């Protein structure tokens, strides 16, 4: 074969281009910048477009701008199937607990190097998503929680709902208790007269002294709508899990909530258990099981139907002490059936948080002002006042969690 200058030139160009591409880097430059350890560290789990980020600060009330822009904050996007999975995460004792892929229960931390890092995990043998957490029973070393679904026992016509006690130091299971939540003993029909196909959704779990209470609702497998305007509450011995009975109440509809971790029931300072209800017209209310009793208080129903609670998204109910509770955006006194404060009025803004946060008796929640600015607000129940804290970049689309990490 006769070769000449052209041939040599082009062969050289081809090979050089290959070598050029080959010499390119596989990855961006590694730029780890260790954070300066702080005495206190708070985390705000935010979403922006389709990404999720944890913004950290040493002081929620400091006049500063918290933003993931300009390469700030911890990018956790790759740990979630989608940004909205933030609603299924739970933060406890500085760790985030995720069951994002439905098989793995992971304990994550924010490292000093500013990374989201798995500390430990537990592998479930079948589908598992974390359900309600018994925060009052959990300790520094143990997390008590249930799953979003249990095991259907058709012989006894019950859902065997587990309560897991997990050692958070080793992520091993200390023990498991099983509650047997009864299904209906009759067939519910669709509008067209055909039998409906229902499944049970536990919406609350509260352990109070020697009793455990499960609120639950039924949904249609056919149209995925909630059915039956009745609150079902199963109560049994704890930890014996025996002597169970089913309580029903039709005044406020089903026990509100869904299977994600945010709690919609609480026990006040008097030991009275309150459960939020929601009827099929989306009107809310509160029912009560008084301290030491296992029956729904027939003389108590706090009708919240005229209040736009959870209008801006389902949120976490917080107990504020002195007989008060925060059901976003209202501070209420449930025993007296009074609205104490509307934080929308106090802040001139609307709440934008799923999992708000209480520390030292003060509530921390994120609000968006009418001019589209986002701030952390501190609410002090003692003075019934709010204080504006750190600003959050208005480009974020939601704040899922406000937590203390350290």
């Amino acid at each position, binding site marked *: 074969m006769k070769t000449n200058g*052209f041939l040599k030139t*082009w062969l050289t160009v*081809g090979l050089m281009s290959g070598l050029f*591409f080959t010499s390119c880097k596989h990855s961006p430059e590694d730029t780890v910048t260790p954070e300066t350890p702080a005495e206190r560290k708070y985390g705000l789990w935010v979403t922006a477009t389709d990404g999720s980020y944890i913004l950290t600060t040493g002081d929620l009330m400091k006049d500063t701008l918290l933003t993931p822009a300009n*390469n700030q904050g911890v990018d956790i996007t790759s740990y979630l199937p989608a940004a909205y999975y933030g609603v299924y995460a739970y933060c406890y004792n500085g760790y985030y607990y995720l069951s994002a892929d439905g098989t793995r229960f992971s304990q994550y931390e924010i490292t000093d190097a500013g990374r989201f890092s798995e500390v430990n995990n537990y592998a479930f043998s079948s589908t598992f998503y974390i359900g309600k957490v018994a925060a009052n029973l959990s300790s520094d070393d143990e997390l008590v929680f249930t799953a979003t679904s249990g095991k259907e026992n058709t012989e006894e016509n019950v859902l065997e709902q587990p309560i897991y006690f997990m050692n958070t130091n080793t992520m091993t299971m200390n023990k498991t208790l099983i509650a047997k939540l009864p299904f209906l003993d009759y067939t519910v029909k669709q509008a067209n007269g055909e039998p409906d196909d229902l499944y049970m959704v536990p919406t609350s779990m509260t352990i109070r002294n020697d009793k455990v209470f499960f609120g639950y609702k039924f949904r249609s497998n056919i149209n995925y709508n909630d059915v039956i305007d009745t609150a079902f509450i199963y109560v049994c011995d704890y930890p014996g899990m025996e002597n169970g009975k089913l309580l029903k109440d039709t005044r406020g509809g089903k026990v509100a909530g869904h299977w994600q971790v945010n709690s919609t029931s609480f026990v006040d300072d008097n030991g009275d258990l309150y459960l939020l209800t929601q009827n099929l017209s989306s009107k809310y209310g509160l029912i009560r099981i008084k301290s030491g009793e296992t029956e729904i208080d027939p003389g108590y129903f706090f009708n919240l139907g005229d209040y736009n609670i959870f209008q801006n998204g389902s949120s976490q109910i917080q107990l504020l002490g002195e007989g008060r509770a925060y059901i976003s955006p209202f501070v209420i006194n449930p025993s007296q059936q009074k609205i104490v404060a509307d934080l929308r009025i106090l802040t001139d803004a609307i709440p934008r948080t799923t999992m708000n946060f209480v520390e030292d008796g003060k509530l921390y929640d994120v609000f968006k002002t009418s001019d589209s600015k986002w701030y952390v607000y501190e609410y002090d129940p003692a003075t019934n006042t709010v204080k504006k804290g750190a600003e959050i970049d208005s480009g974020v*689309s939601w704040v899922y969690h406000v937590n203390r990490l350290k």
Partner: protein
Amino acid sequence: MQINKVLLTALLCLFNIFLFAQKPGHITISGYIRDPFGRAIAGASVIIDGSTRGTVTDDEGFYKLEKSAPGKLLLKISMLGYVAQEKWITIGDNANVTHDFKLKEDRGKLSEIVVYGKTVNQTKVEDIKRSGFNVNVIDLNKHSNEAANINQVIRRTTGITVRESGGMGSDFVFRINGLDAKIYIDGIPMDNFGSSMTLNNIPVNLVDRVEIYKGVVPAFLGSDALGGAVNIITKRRNRRFIDLSYSYGSFNTHQASLVSTFAHPKNGLSVKVNGFYNLSDNNYTMYTEEKYNVILETTENNRYIPIEKARRFYDRYESAMGQVEVGAQNRKWADRFFAGLTYSQNKKENQLGATVNTVRGGNWSESNYIMPTLTYVKNNFLIKGLYADVFASYSNEIRHVRDTALHNYDWSGKWISNTLNSEPNEPVHMRYNNNNYLARTNFNYDFNEERTQSLNLNYNFNTSRQRSYDLVENRDVNGLPNRLGRHIAGLSWQGQWLKKRLISMLSVKYYGMDTYKQVDERVFGNNNTVVSGEIKSYNNFWNYYSGNLALRYRFAKDAGVKFSLERAYNMPGMTAIFGDGQNYLANWDIQPERSDNLNVGGYYNTFIKVNHFLNLDASVFYRRAANFINTRIVTQSDGSLFQFYNVPGVNLYGFEAEIKYGYKDLIALTLNGSYDKAVDNQKYTDDTNQQVSLTYKSQLPNRPWVYGNTDLTLAKNDWLGKGSRIQLSWLYQYTHWFYLSWAHLGTLASKDHIPSQMVQSVIISYSWKRNKYNISGEARNLTNERVYDNFRLQKPGRAFYLKLRVSIM
């Protein structure tokens, strides 16, 4: 797959018929006509001097003259733009004579050079390609000895990204310049061909060429494509022909294909039989790569433990397709009339769920698909100069999606211990029944014999219906009936001006969408009596119009510029409008996606000292895409469902360039590079337009944006005997790394990325008896790179393939 065995047996019988159907005493003269660079010359005239006997070469530059009398004769070869040749040849009794020709270009007479596209024998398509569209044409005959599918070949082209999640049969996302593209097979939308016919499934041997239109799509494709279109032109021959290939390679991968035609020379009766069979265990090794945040795990005492590597154990893929067409060609009443039947089926195991460690051990799907078709093509239909092309089909696909695993798996291939005695996973068995009707007509009228002015009218209508059944619950999950019909019509005017220096194509398109649904608005009282309301029917009909203009101006013999401008729509699908009854909510008000496309490009071709060829192609593009159809989470009664909705969209811009060099037909070198950048164009995140998005004007993450290819081929003819050819190819693909999430959000230390890909492959092939017999070996991903198109989803490492091919003309 019992039916595969039946299919293969039938195909092998047919192969035997073809092989032994040669009549004794039958004399033929045949050969290839190529240019000095080994490229086939289609449409060249081959005449026996002094007789009326003659033919023209086909897309492979092949000619065949039959029943020639013994003796000495003069063959005359001619083709516009090439120096004609004559050759005396002597044939004896019972002889099959072969003579190849190499035509040199006649630089004095050459009016224009079309680097690719010379092999297009469908003149209507050629006209469009010579216009101002930004189109790449890949001649797959050049790749027929590769053990490759179409994806693997066309991703070497500029502006194309294919992101696969695994090996053969895996899911993939195909983009042209970063936008969704519609894919067609012989002008028919690929969606109509079922799940067995995909770009990563169809073997290269079934295909003549692939046309890739970027941005502006010609009206004749009847497309609602947004960012471009791919038109796969399958092999069609007007003569007896068979091409049979089989390859075997790593991961127990088998690929077989058959393309054949029997055409009776007198009565024009033709039978075409095509088919393919693919099987792969896809059991390649995956590796832990901490730097890419890829950590494979097994379990021990219900804890995930990192492991260094693991084999995929549940990703077997099997597919088969058989197609028979019977009809007539070159008749007075039809240039082509065929009735066809296509049957295909596949079975696919799905090992990976949402993440790389969500391992499934019992999730699989299978489908059966059948499609009868009718095709009619006629030049001078009713009046002189009118060309008609009519196609109609009905298709039915039944697809089963199942999950039979009771427990979760890990990478060891074993169940995770059920120490908690928890509820086993529920079995899943869904059946989907899809029906689709398609009708397509294409008329072209030439106003003069030079065809400098012509009008093209295209109309497509298709309607589809999906029914879903939960076979575990034994329930129809469709709800009330609904229906979707799409009408797309295009009218284009092509003109040639200034002594054919300027070619223009002006088109208008109409998109119509006809939707129908029933809604149960009844309210029931006691004893299920209807208190009020009724089942209401709703009809909607949406109209959209668009247009495009494509210009090409040739300012020198071998150089020109191209310009095209378009507004295009992409219509929403069944699930977007009606939901799926399970995970997706309906959105009756969803709008089509829209894109304004602009392309400007230039080309330059030159020959240096006759034997050297150089081609330069470069273009820039701009796309403004709006009303992007995206998904969001919608909360209903405390539960969450997906819903399709419109978002303002993105702007895309970029450029691409390609250099090709050839020395005779011994050396071919291609270098290309593409850069395309997509920028978020959604300014506000709230309805009051106050909250500016953090990602506004930022580059979209998780998409390749810089990529390039090098392809060097060295060949030697007649080295190991007359009529033989040995060829060595080195392929190199580069994709620059990119972030998984927005580059400017979050610290760099916390960000994940998809690493650069540098994939090298080597193919060596040897053919003898003038391409009749071929054997090739391929080493893919020779350096065993960790290749990821998607985050954590490692693709196969180094793999070897051996391919045998017989091609009888």
